[in-house]
């Protein structure tokens, strides 16, 4: 009882802090960190649906992110439509791709799925880089100045911040909703033991495919949001392996398969990444990836449940010691 009340109060406090953050820290540097944090939290939460809850570890989610990012600028470049109009197209393409990959690989063990995702992402990245209609290696550019509000091209970071925050809220609500429903229990059963789940009548393949489709759709939205803000996309910033890596590490650090794990992961990693990039200058990005690799290995070896799991184990012990003293 007490825990629930405390949990709800904490959640309210956290939401209030997110709402007020860009007003309190109004400098462009801090607002930029805020927007980057939200985007990382959205992408990782989207990955979390299939990678965390269903336990099917995609290491090529950049393919959905990239499709979501390219679609708005494709409709803008080809037909002059507002970029926003490309978002549904990005979602549809991603869902189609998710089905195409999921149907053959999800009936096999998780390793096949992981290999397929990384290969398909790389295949798309290279192909897009040779395809002139989507800008080949140079990429696509959005509207330089807004023709109207519908272009969603703003000078200030503030509108982006609140749009991103709204999307994160929707995504977390959807996740929270299925967590307590049959679908959520199916996912957890599959993750714990596929064979056992199947023998109890869980429609394993359908459930995994549904999780992948849902995850792909939200990842595409994350890509669209990214491109609306930056107004520019090229094969590496859309489909690069680093995009996938970031989703995996953010979710796994906080806690894959938990509602707020990806948010916590982003809360820790984004400031850390900004710090290494600031301290080490241009050479910092390479160091960031070394750090990412190291963190992933340490999580896998010592704490696959992420920080949430660690807190669940270590927290009570700490509290007891505190009370005893």
């Amino acid at each position, binding site marked *: 009882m007490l825990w629930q009340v405390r949990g709800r109060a904490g959640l309210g406090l956290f939401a209030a802090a997110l709402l007020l953050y860009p007003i309190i820290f109004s400098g462009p540097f801090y607002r930029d960190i805020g927007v980057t944090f939200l985007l990382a939290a959205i992408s990782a939460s989207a990955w979390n649906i299939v*990678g*965390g809850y269903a*336990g*099917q*570890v995609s*290491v090529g989610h950049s393919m959905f992110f990239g499709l979501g990012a390219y679609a708005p600028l494709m409709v803008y470049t080809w037909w002059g439509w507002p970029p926003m109009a490309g978002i549904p197209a990005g979602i549809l393409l991603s869902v189609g791709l998710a089905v195409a990959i999921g149907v*053959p*690989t999800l009936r*096999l*063990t*998780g*390793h*096949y799925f*992981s*290999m*397929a995702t*990384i*290969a*398909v992402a*790389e*295949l798309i990245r*290279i*192909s897009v*880089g*040779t395809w002139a209609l989507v800008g080949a290696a140079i990429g696509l550019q959005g509207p330089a100045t807004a023709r109207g509000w519908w272009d969603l091209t703003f000078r200030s970071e503030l509108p982006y911040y609140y749009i991103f925050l709204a999307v994160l809220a929707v995504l977390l609500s959807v996740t929270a909703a299925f967590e307590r429903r049959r679908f959520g229990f199916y996912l957890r059963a599959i*993750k714990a033991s596929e064979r056992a789940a199947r023998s109890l009548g869980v429609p394993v393949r359908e459930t995994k495919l549904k999780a992948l489709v849902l995850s792909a759709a939200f990842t595409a939205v994350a890509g669209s949001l990214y491109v609306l803000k930056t107004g520019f996309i090229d094969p590496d910033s859309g489909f690069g*392996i680093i995009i996938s*890596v970031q989703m*995996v590490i953010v979710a*796994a650090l906080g806690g*894959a398969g938990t509602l707020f794990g990806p948010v916590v992961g982003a809360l820790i990693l984004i400031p850390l990444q900004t710090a290494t990039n600031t301290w080490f200058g241009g050479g910092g990005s*390479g*160091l960031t*990836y*070394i750090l*990412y*690799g*190291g*963190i*992933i*290995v*340490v*999580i*896998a*070896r010592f704490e*696959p449940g992420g920080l949430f799991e660690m807190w669940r184990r270590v927290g009570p012990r700490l509290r007891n010691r505190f009370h005893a003293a």
Partner: protein
Amino acid sequence: MANCNGRWAARRRSEAQDELGADSMVVLQVVVGGLLLGAIYALFSSGLTLIWGMMNFINFAHGEFVMLGMYVALLVVVWLGGGPAVFGLAAAVALFALGVAVYLSLIRHVIQAPMLAQILSTFGLALLLRYTAFWIFSANFVSLPQTSLGGTLNLGGIFLPVAQLVAGAVAIALTLALHLLLTRTRVGSMLLAVAEDRTAAMLMGIRPDRMQALAWGLSAGAAGIAGALMATAYPWSPSVGETFGLIAFVVVALGGFGSVLGSLYAGLIIGLIQAVSAFWLGAIYKDIVVYGLFVALLWLRPQGLMGKA
């Protein structure tokens, strides 16, 4: 890798055009060049398939092991000197040790863990190795200084660098040796016994942990020596690890998960397909063709073209 192969193809084309019957000669040259590169693919892919066959585990850092083998060769040549036998052996030994160390410190602890931990462990290791290499060696392409294998051989109109020929031949010999080790020796039987049934092997007096450490050593050692062989004939940068890792997936998917002999055939086929598609479609398309083939394979025959279910 992409650009250099194209460049070679162009050079080979111009050299061979002076000959009579130039067209068929060019095609033959492309085919032989592809098979020689494919032999090296076969060698490092046999390491990946060994681990898969032993413990149903995919090593996402396998391409990085190949890349490290190349840099070990470079460092040995620059610091100590010595011929291909010296740096080849050095790369094999160094990577064998790394493979055993990775197994003992990391893999052993995640093998019973959830899928997430299994995949993240080697995926994180790949990033760690790749970007550390970028940091130390920079992103520039390097190649070995001229070794004793310099020069070009004229085989009835086909011009082949001696280094490529030797590297390809040694790679085929080593892949066959690995196959024989697994199928014809006592140690091989012990390895296969552990792969078949860990508990039963233990009851027979085999220590599974030791055998699996050995498998990781052999796997990484094969990757390392393949890297050293490749370094004699082709330039590289730290980013080749990612490409080779994916190529190893394709080869293993084609040759059958767990079959060393299958990966020998499949490696040669993939090398051939790459060379031919680079020749006819252009260098950029060779990876598109090969990864496309991989996706098609996963659709049609996920157990591998030549593998059993």
